[in-house]
């Protein structure tokens, strides 16, 4: 039986790597997840045959409940809420790794002290990933609205982390770790995850989720060493390193360093100077004029943002774009790398609406086309088109690459209200002379625009 298990785990690990490889290209991506899924099924089924196990009833029940709930929630969730679902599933993985460590520590039977050390490190990382991901979920879901910032916060966090480390060392050294130390250790580790995530602003959440994803992978790998489970070691390590790289790519796309994301409450500092720099007033436009303006344009660039996702406007927008195309207007979609709540978030939504790939452009591809565009239609995007990122060194988003929508001849901003963007920074774009504001819910506005176009 041992051989069958080893072979199955080997197969699973190979399928995971091949699956991930396929997922890194749009052509083969869909097959990739199926390969990885097959690996998971093989590994899970064969684990039931591990010799010397009991509690099969509990095991089956736990899989049924956990798997069932996740299946249901994953199927039900709207495409726009994907980021927080990834956060919560990731947190569950971290929690599972921590639970494995807890069981091993309570059992107190380690083959060597190295394993004991690894179990504790994995437990620490897993716990932080668990509670941190849950906070990230709560923030993206809108359950926690404000970023918690208080004086001496970093020192306090450091103390909590130090406390977790001290108890971690106690657990590493103990022959038979006491339940008190175990409890305090996990309590402090979980608390640290919460404290570390609370001050981070929503705009930075994608990077944070990606980081926790990498951490969970690492925790899984460490617990894999403890259990001598090759599939866990390989899958966990691969995710750990891939996730770290992905985190770096995301942070780079936002022009923020990882430490900057983690250790500075975003948008909480001195933003007042940036606000005062916005000159002029916001000028409104109604749907009729906006429709006319675009109908007689040669080239329209649509810049979607999170607002479009919230309003579920992607289908209407694409319909509107096709009407424009019928009138021989060139329509292009410009997507900022961090538009929405995750890199690629907008691409997924536009793909859902049926927008072909060749109409969607990256920041680098489209930015020099804005000066030739008659109209830049900004829908629910804010910080990613804010020109202060280029001009005002005091602004918290200074240096972030932006879409140069302000360089288009006319800019129409569809926006629900007069509020600020997710980062809390006032958008100078709205005050420019060539900018007109079109207030309303994205979907509603798109509907009106279509109706107006039909009448022309």
């Amino acid at each position, binding site marked *: 039986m041992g051989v069958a298990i080893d072979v199955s785990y080997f197969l699973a690990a190979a399928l995971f790597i091949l699956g991930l490889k396929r997922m890194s290209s749009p052509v083969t991506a*869909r097959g990739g997840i199926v390969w990885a899924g097959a690996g998971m099924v093989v590994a899970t089924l064969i684990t*039931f045959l591990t010799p010397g196990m009991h509690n099969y009833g509990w095991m089956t029940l736990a899989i049924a409940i956990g798997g069932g709930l996740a299946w249901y929630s994953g199927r039900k969730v709207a495409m726009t809420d994907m980021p927080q679902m990834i956060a919560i599933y990731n947190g569950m*993985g971290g929690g599972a790794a921590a639970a494995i460590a807890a069981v091993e520590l309570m*059992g107190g039977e380690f083959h060597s002290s190295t394993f004991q050390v690894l179990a504790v490190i994995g437990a620490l990382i897993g716990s932080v990933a668990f509670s941190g991901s849950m906070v990230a979920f709560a923030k993206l879901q809108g359950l926690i609205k404000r970023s918690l910032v208080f004086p001496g916060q970093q020192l306090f966090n450091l103390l909590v982390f130090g406390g977790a480390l001290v108890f971690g060392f106690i657990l590493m050294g103990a022959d038979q770790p006491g339940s008190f130390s175990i409890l305090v250790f996990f309590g402090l580790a979980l608390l640290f995850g919460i404290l570390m995530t609370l001050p981070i602003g929503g705009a930075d959440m994608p990077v944070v989720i990606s980081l926790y994803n990498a951490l969970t992978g690492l925790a899984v790998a460490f617990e894999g060493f403890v259990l001598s489970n090759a599939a866990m070691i390989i899958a966990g390590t691969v995710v750990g390193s891939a*996730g770290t790289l992905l985190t770096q790519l995301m942070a780079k796309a936002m022009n923020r360093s990882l430490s900057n994301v983690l250790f500075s409450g975003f948008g909480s500092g001195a933003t007042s100077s940036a606000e005062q720099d916005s000159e002029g007033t916001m000028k409104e436009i109604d749907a009729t004029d906006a429709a006319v303006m675009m109908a007689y344009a040669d080239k329209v660039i649509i810049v979607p943002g999170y607002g479009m996702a919230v309003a579920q406007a992607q289908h209407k927008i694409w319909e509107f774009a096709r009407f424009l195309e019928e009138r021989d207007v060139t329509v292009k979609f410009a997507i900022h790398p961090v538009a929405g709540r995750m890199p690629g978030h907008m691409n997924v939504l536009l793909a859902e609406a049926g927008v072909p790939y060749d109409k969607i452009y990256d920041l680098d591809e489209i930015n020099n086309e804005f000066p030739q565009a008659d109209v830049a239609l900004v829908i629910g995007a804010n910080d990613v088109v804010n020109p202060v990122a280029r001009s005002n060194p005091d602004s918290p988003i200074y240096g972030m690459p932006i879409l140069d929508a302000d360089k288009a001849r006319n800019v129409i901003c569809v926006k629900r209200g007069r509020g600020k963007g997710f980062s809390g920074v006032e958008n100078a774009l709205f005050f420019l002379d060539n900018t007109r504001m079109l207030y309303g819910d994205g979907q509603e506005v798109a509907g009106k625009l279509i109706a107006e176009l039909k009448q022309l």
Partner: protein
Amino acid sequence: MIEGFTALYIFMLAAFTGYEVISRVPVILHTPLMSGSNFVHGIVLVGAMVALGHAETDMEILVGFIGVLLGAGNAVGGYVVTERMLEMFKSSKEAK
């Protein structure tokens, strides 16, 4: 038993593999890939099953039970979400 330098070698090679697999990936795939890798570490389910399978006391069984529950959630949820996301890439290409 995987121990000592064998463990280190596995760790090192797997780390390089992950790095290689992800480098040169287009931005549009960042979210699905994050979701996909999130699914892959759902393999933690297997470890949680083993831990629960060897649990003796009530407390160990309880924690192990939670572990399996969370692990199953990670694996199943990660798969469903990733599959739904990637499904859209397919439909957009067929429309083309």
